[in-house]
């Protein structure tokens, strides 16, 4: 079935079909609509979900954690400051290995206050032990949200599915949705090994761990993340087989013969595809990498895909404030460190606080990269910005 949906509507629709046991959420721009639409599903009896309209995002994540630990499938949605307020609980969700799915509508973090898109919120939570999957558009968000339930429950890791605030969350597009039955059968039942409400077999969850055991818990959790990519691959593969819709881990666009490429996440990939097409029409062999899975770091994908690239512009929608580029730049660069032919990597910070990025600006980046391709690495300024005064 084809429907016209904004990004927020597409996610809410996916949540309706997932029909989670518990949704605990709090309003925040630009993710509010997801919760609003979902509450109307609750009000109309279209879902069985217990909707807990909590008094803060901290409580939203706390309640999701408690619900998941109690044997319920739990989901929430938030943005920006809301995710920042959850920060403490993000680590607890992953440390307790609870398969919660959080739909994040990316928005910048204060200060200054700004309600528009950049990726500072999710990337600031990169070390919290959550799988993070970025989506280019509403269709990808819909499909990924459904897959996220399976991924979370296979890996025992919480999953964050992200869309760009306003750019995707509030823009309408055609999406193809599955039937309710198809989603229901794809995600199956949530059957955790232990749960708090099994009162005949009482468990204590969340005990203090001293130096004699804490490390082993963390090591086991790290192993969970080490194994996560295989599970993501499996779920995406199964989704493709069942519904003929391809979800990528690292999407490549016109990269076969390219020596010059850019890498980005989220909606900018759509804009960059236009730039690639325009330049290809003019005879330039340029390509695009759209990174979908930010956590875990998909090292083997990046190493393989970037093998023949000579120079890579890494478009980063956040300012790392590190004096050495943002996390995306540093991580992609680090992944390539052991490669025999190490390519040139350049950081382009763009689009902060919702500043638009145009195909023309991305074309300029490509042309700049082309002009730098044969320069000595040391002579190249690595830290660049797009369209900032």
């Amino acid at each position: 079935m084809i429907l016209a949906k904004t990004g927020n509507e597409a996610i809410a629709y996916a949540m309706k079909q997932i029909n989670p046991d518990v949704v605990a959420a709090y309003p925040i721009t630009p993710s509010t609509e997801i919760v609003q639409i979902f509450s109307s599903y609750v009000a109309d009896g279209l879902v069985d979900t217990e909707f807990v309209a909590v008094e803060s995002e901290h409580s939203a994540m706390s309640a999701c954690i408690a619900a998941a630990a109690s044997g319920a499938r739990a989901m929430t949605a938030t943005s920006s400051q809301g995710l920042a307020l959850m920060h403490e609980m993000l680590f607890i969700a992953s440390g307790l290995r609870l398969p919660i799915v959080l739909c994040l509508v990316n928005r910048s973090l204060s200060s200054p206050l700004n309600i528009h898109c950049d990726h500072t919120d999710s990337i600031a939570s990169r070390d919290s032990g959550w799988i993070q999957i970025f989506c280019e558009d509403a269709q990808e968000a819909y499909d990924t949200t459904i897959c996220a339930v399976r991924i979370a429950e296979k890996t025992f890791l919480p999953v964050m599915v992200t869309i760009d605030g306003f750019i995707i969350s509030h823009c309408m597009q055609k999406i193809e949705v599955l039937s309710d039955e198809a989603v229901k059968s794809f995600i199956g039942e949530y059957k955790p090994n232990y749960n708090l409400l099994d009162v005949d077999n009482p468990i204590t969850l969340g005990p203090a761990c001293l130096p004699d055991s804490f490390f082993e818990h963390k090591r086991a959790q790290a192993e969970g993340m080490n194994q996560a990519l295989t599970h993501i691959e499996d779920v995406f593969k199964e989704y493709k087989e069942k519904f003929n819709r391809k979800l990528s881990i690292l999407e490549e666009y016109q990269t076969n013969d390219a020596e010059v490429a850019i890498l980005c996440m989220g909606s900018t990939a759509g804009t960059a595809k236009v730039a690639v097409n325009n330049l290809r029409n003019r005879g330039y062999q340029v390509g695009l990498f759209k990174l979908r899975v930010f956590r875990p770091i998909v090292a083997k994908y990046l190493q393989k895909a970037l093998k023949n690239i000579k120079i890579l512009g890494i478009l980063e929608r956040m300012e790392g404030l590190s004096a050495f580029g943002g996390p995306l730049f540093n991580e992609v660069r680090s992944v390539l460190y052991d490669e025999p032919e190490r390519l040139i990597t350049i950081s382009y910070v763009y689009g902060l606080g919702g500043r638009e990025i145009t195909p023309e600006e991305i074309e300029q980046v490509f042309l700049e990269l082309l002009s730098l391709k044969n320069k000595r690495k040391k002579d190249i300024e690595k830290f660049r910005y797009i369209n900032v005064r």
Partner: protein
Amino acid sequence: MDLLKEEELFSSGHRACAGCGEVLAVRQVLLASKKPIACAMPTGCLEIVSTIFPHTAWQVPMFHSAFENAAATISGMEAAYRILLKKGKINKKIYFIAFGGDGGTYDIGFQALSGAIERRHSFLYVCTDNEAYMNTGIQRSSATPQFAHTTTSPKGEVLPGKLQPRKDIMEIIIAHEVPYAAQTTVAFFQDLVKKVEKAQSYDGPTFINILVPCPLGWAHSPSLTIEVSRLAVETNFWPLYEYEKGVYRLTYQPSQVKPITEWLKLQGRFAHLFEEKNKHLLEEFQKYVDEKYQKLLKKCELSEK
């Protein structure tokens, strides 16, 4: 109810200090509670003394996740319970109890508690109130009485301990229009047991504030826990009362009210009040206790009319 015949749900062998009032309260609540129970608690003394991995003192499900969220946690558990009951995955009534100290209840967990009560989740919230942050080393909370010495409201050359009177959490909880809220303490275990039973006769959110002496933080002998608890009541510092569907009721009245100094003098945290220069503070303390008690009596009289 014959509590001696009830199964102990909080095991011995936990790591609480000798004379700890908090674990007494927990044990009594669990004995008195309807069964089965599922519990939550915030980070604090109780969590540390009862759940160091791989050990646990809890014979009932217990969940701890963070400091400020015991009420949000019990909300999530109770929401999960409702849907799993509806789906037939659970087939029995479960009683939910959250245990929070005064820090996790009056202060950092206050917002979550207010939210959970407003949403009318079905749970009993038990505040084990020892009037300071004991787990981190006796820092003042908004439950710390005026003039008490704590490590962040120390008595000094110019300051006599904490400057402000304690927060009246009972009135704030009652303002949420809960069906039942009560105040008790460990020395009056029959009172405590009755209040747990009464609280659990209501489906909505209910609240019991239990004064639990802390020998370490209050600086009294561990052998005096029950005595200190009893004197808090006999001096009218901690009147035993309940609020039930709009009615305030005293559940115990001392036959002869003792002066507040009887309670204060057992505790090192108030020792400085007995210095000559601080005599006026003792008078002030007595005045505060008397006025507060009179106000409570008024509420009882008014609501009985």
